[in-house]
């Protein structure tokens, strides 16, 4: 054998060896804001995905191979989302991603996953654009903001019978998208908002804005955004003596909303739209109990993240760990999850959305409004 041939053989052996090593685990990324002001949501995503992966591995893994999770931190910043997406795809060799959290991160990251043929299932990004882009690999196990906005708008019109609605958003993809969706349904009902304005993410003083809300005499304030701004906003609203009903979306489902608002008394009566409580699905009871036994309350998006991991697992294990075929497969098969049976349409949205209205109480807990 000539030297060149030996060298080639050695190289191919080495490559094959490396490939086998990489095949030993199925790498799945969990992408979200693991640090930064929205880290509470990143924790929900991680806890849910971690438990789902542990449960799947305990039951034999995917085709006998173990799931290995990789944390990818985007801090809810679009630029960082793109760079962690590239890292997941290139150096971690992820086959699928559970995430991201913020829509403004999910949308740019989704294109990188599409190019690399990686399956993406987001537990939380609700902005319609994400699936409207028409990428074949993108799915979500939550609803869409237009559905969420519909639920909020019809509640405002039918139940609250409000005429003077102030619409506030945080100028971000998610917050503004949600506020716009709510506004357009509201207008379709024939109610014109009395005010439509944006605030700056990261600021804490909204007094000027609130004085303006007071001046237009709003009886409902609808806010599209996250709890870090919603907390100070609702607190300053109450401090200025406004009794307007405060409604927001699924961006405030975290206990932190109460601590940011300063006291449970400020969040008392705040309404929000969010998916039907996971405990209403019989299949979720066992997992919820196990979470609680381990000392963790599976609030907000924890079970959505668990569900997303189950969807990823079903797509991969039924298609020989091929994420591209898995994406195709998901569009024609339903998956049994802790949150019931999930079916996806051609865009990757759930066929059934389950938004309901919740109310926060004076103890700082939320429960479904009947």
């Amino acid at each position, binding site marked *: 054998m000539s030297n060149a041939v030996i060298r080639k053989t050695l190289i191919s052996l080495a490559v094959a060896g490396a490939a086998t090593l990489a095949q030993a685990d199925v790498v799945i990324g969990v992408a979200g804001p*693991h*640090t*930064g*002001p929205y*880290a*509470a949501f990143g924790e929900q995503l991680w806890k849910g995905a971690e438990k789902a992966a542990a449960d799947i591995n305990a039951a034999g893994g995917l085709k006998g191979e173990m799931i290995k999770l990789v944390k990818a931190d985007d801090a809810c910043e679009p630029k960082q989302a793109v760079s962690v997406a590239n890292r997941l795809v290139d150096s971690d060799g992820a086959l699928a991603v559970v995430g991201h959290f913020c829509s403004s991160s999910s949308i740019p990251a989704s294109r990188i996953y599409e190019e690399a043929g990686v399956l993406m299932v987001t537990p939380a990004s609700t902005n319609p654009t994400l699936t409207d882009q028409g990428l074949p690999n993108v799915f979500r196990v939550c609803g869409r903001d237009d559905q969420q906005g519909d639920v909020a708008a019809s509640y405002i019109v039918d139940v609250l019978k409000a005429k003077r609605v102030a619409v506030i958003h945080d*100028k971000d993809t998610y917050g503004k998208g949600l506020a716009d969706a709510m506004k357009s349904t509201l207008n379709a009902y024939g109610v014109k908002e009395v005010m439509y*304005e*944006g*605030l*700056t993410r*990261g*600021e*804490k*003083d909204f*007094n*000027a*804005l609130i*004085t*303006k809300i*007071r*001046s237009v005499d709003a009886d409902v304030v609808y806010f599209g955004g996250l*709890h*870090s701004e919603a*907390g*100070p906003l609702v*607190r*300053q609203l109450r*401090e*200025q*003596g406004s009794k307007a009903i405060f409604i927001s979306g699924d961006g405030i489902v975290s206990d*932190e909303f109460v*601590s*940011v*608002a*300063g*006291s449970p008394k400020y969040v008392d009566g705040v309404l929000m739209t969010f998916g039907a409580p996971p405990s209403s699905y019989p299949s979720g009871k066992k997992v919820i109990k196990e979470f609680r036994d381990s000392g963790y309350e599976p609030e907000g998006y924890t079970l959505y993240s668990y569900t997303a991991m189950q969807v990823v697992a079903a797509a991969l294990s039924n298609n020989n760990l091929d994420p591209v075929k898995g994406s195709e497969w998901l569009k024609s098969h339903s998956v049994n999850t802790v949150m019931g049976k999930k079916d996806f349409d051609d865009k990757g949205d759930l066929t059934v959305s389950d938004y309901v209205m919740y109310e926060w109480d004076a103890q700082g807990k939320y429960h479904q409004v009947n």
Partner: protein
Amino acid sequence: MDIVLQQLVNGLTLGSVYGLIAIGYTMVYGIIGMINFAHGDVYMVSAYITAIAIALLTFFGIESFPIIIIGTLFLTVAVTGAYGWVIERIAYRPLRNSSRLSVLISAIGMSLILQNYVQLSQGANQQGVPTLLTGAIRFTVGDGFVQITYMKLLILFISLLGMGVLTYVIQKTKLGRMCRATQQDRKMASILGIDTDKVISTVFVIGAMMAALAGVLVTLDYGAFDFYVGFIIGIKAFTAAVLGGIGSLPGAMLGGLILGLSEALFAGLISSDYKDVFSFSLLVLILIIRPSGLLGKPEVEKV
């Protein structure tokens, strides 16, 4: 009418907070000609110390509000002052004789270090302190009302007091004379026997203490903060310092008030989407007319 008055109240309290933080930027610039980009993060650190101080005081069974607020102010201002001293000592003094650019980069590095240090040691989550002082004074105006919460009154009172004391110290005391001498000509001051390194340290400590005053007051008022909270308010305070004339103490206060009022009035009467655009346009306009800010002295080129 009531709405305009209310916006004036909102703007005044916001502006006095900007002014307090702007003092740190302007004094440091005045004395060594550098922009201390870590200053916003010193403010952020003081927010965390506030929460720790409140927790400590309540842990020792103190429940009366005046004692808690005085204790918290005292503890936070002292600890944050120490931070100011340490930061100057490790990040800026070793670079005293190098180019301005190196110090600037060192300041940006310090800012990142502080953010990440707080994030790692305190967690990335949103933090909150409970509401301690509630209630407000209301004036009926026409068919509406104007209100100012007791907390906002306290903010106005303490910031005015802080600024007053500082002005007195700079104008009337020996320490103030040393500061002004160092500001005018550092080399000459040191020849005349002033320990300029010590004066510069003192200026950093004073700047940090003023930021801590703002940190305590704002944290008690809004109740919410995280490790990133120094960024926006730092930028705003820096703008206020430039607006008023960087290097000038009354300029920082004036700049803070103008910025706070313009934000509140624009957000309240026109649109909150573009209030920052408005504030920065105002800044550009003022700098075109008066390149060294409202109360700044034009830099004289020394030959």
